[in-house]
């Protein structure tokens, strides 16, 4: 067994208690270790310790050919593998000036938005577990998430690590009847989302555990680098899909969801309402889906000209970006991932200090870190 990493506490205040949560703990969403200094039940100081899932993705990528990196990206944010595929392929396409086909653009938007729905459903389920609507939330949302995972299974053969979006196109075209299945599934999900609102959002216990808890002020949110639902929950109308559009998001009609209060309930509400927006985008994209080729011709050996790009997308957790530097060889010279969960997790101490220990768990759940992505 790996020994726990050393941690020396310089000074512990009078009457304080230091407790250790994790790295294996049911409430920490993965291999996160938290060290909390308590005064009674009040948290005075929190120190997140990460790195237990650090696989050196960036170093491995420097030793692989460009197409070989796509399946590796699946293992970053394993709840939304499509987004990772997308940001990587988009970076390489920009580096090589590849213009992808119209049909591919539409299919990419469809799978990305379905992925966002699946990921938000999982987030709502885990969050329910954290705040005490134990298992009900998880059972319900995972039932609906299953619909999307089944759809993706027909697309790519895999249930979580899809490797579907490739440089210059997609793995293959949509299977027969896919469009209809998507429409049926999102119809079901749309009805169920209303049901979740009845079950959780109007639940007294749920509200008491989340409202006014883990408040993040907008000023702090921006300065601490929050993105995605965490930032929008604090009231800034910002979404990469609109502010710095990629693929064809500018063709669809939808709203950026924001909340004002910046507490756990606000962040939860963003998930619920974004599912509805994503459903609307999927419907519009299916409506406009053109016929045609999916893959464009790309060189047999991918060797981008020397140069660098910074490419970013809005993943379900926030701004996911890659900085790729090429030196003209078939392997990237440097590949850096800016992962949203990493940045959002770094503000956990700011919003959970001076709260109760039980609220620390709720706050962590509302940030929703995925450790494949935090540690990389």
């Amino acid at each position, binding site marked *: 067994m790996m020994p726990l990493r050393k941690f020396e506490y310089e000074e512990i205040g009078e009457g304080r208690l230091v407790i250790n949560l994790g790295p294996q703990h049911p409430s920490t969403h993965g291999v996160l270790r938290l060290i909390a200094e308590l005064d009674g039940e009040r948290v005075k100081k929190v120190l997140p310790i*990460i790195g237990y899932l*650090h696989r050196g993705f960036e170093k491995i990528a420097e030793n692989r050919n460009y197409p070989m990196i796509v399946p590796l990206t699946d293992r970053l944010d394993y709840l939304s593998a499509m987004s990772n595929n997308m940001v990587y392929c988009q970076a390489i396409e920009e580096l090589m000036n590849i213009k992808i086909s119209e049909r591919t653009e539409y299919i990419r938007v469809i799978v990305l938005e379905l992925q966002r729905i699946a990921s938000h459903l999982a987030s709502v389920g885990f969050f329910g577990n954290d705040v005490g609507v134990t298992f009900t939330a998880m059972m319900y949302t995972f039932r609906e998430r299953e619909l999307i995972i089944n759809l993706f299974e027909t697309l790519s053969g895999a249930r979580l690590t899809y490797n579907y979006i490739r440089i210059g196109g997609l793995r293959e075209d949509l299977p027969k009847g896919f469009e209809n299945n998507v429409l049926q599934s999102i119809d079901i999900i749309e009805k169920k989302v209303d049901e979740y609102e009845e079950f959780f959002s109007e639940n007294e216990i749920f509200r008491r555990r989340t409202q006014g808890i883990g408040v993040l002020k907008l000023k702090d949110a921006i*300065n601490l680098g929050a993105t995605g639902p965490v930032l929008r929950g604090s009231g800034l109308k910002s979404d990469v899909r609109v502010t*710095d559009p990629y693929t064809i998001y500018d063709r669809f009609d939808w709203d950026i969801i924001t909340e004002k209060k910046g507490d756990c309930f606000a962040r939860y509400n963003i998930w619920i309402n974004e599912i509805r927006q994503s459903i609307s985008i999927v419907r519009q994209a299916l409506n406009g889906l053109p016929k045609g080729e999916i893959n464009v011709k790309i060189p047999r050996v991918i060797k981008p000209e020397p140069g660098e*790009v*910074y490419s970013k997308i809005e993943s379900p957790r926030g701004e996911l970006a890659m*900085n790729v530097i090429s030196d003209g060889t078939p392997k990237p010279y440097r590949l850096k991932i800016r992962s949203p969960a*990493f940045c959002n997790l770094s503000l956990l101490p700011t919003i959970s200090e001076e709260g109760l220990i039980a609220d620390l768990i709720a706050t962590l759940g509302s940030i929703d870190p995925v450790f494949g992505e935090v*540690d990389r």
Partner: protein
Amino acid sequence: MSEILSSLTEKFPDSITNTKVQRKTRIWVTVKIDVLIDVCEYLKNKQDFNHLSSVVGVDYKDRFEVVYHLWSYSKKRQLSLKVPLEKENPKVKTVTKIWRSANWHERETAELFGITFEEHPYPKHLLLADDFEGYPLRKDFKLVEKPWFDKNDASEKQKTD
């Protein structure tokens, strides 16, 4: 975009060594290390680059480089600030006082590249174990595949069996 560039070159005429436009919303600017903090403060306070997206370290043959990717929510523009550092004993001042989000990014870059961020509030390992030696993302750190089992060991064991 060009307004930002021209105002920047006007303010720091001798310290901007290179600029590049990736596309309409992205520019890259290389600055000298001695004015880094001034440039950062200017960009944040006067040009409203309030979001530090990430801090990236790069190991080139003759130098190290730290890249600060900045985003302005009001202008909807990205500016990537590149700072070359010397190859021997690379160090640079921390920007955590300007953007607090730099904290973890700088800790990560420090441990993976061996770049010192001076005056960092908590300069400890973030991802790596405390007793890890070497700087994994430097080019002279070679990845070696560990064998699943020691072949010599196994064959000897077979003989004794």
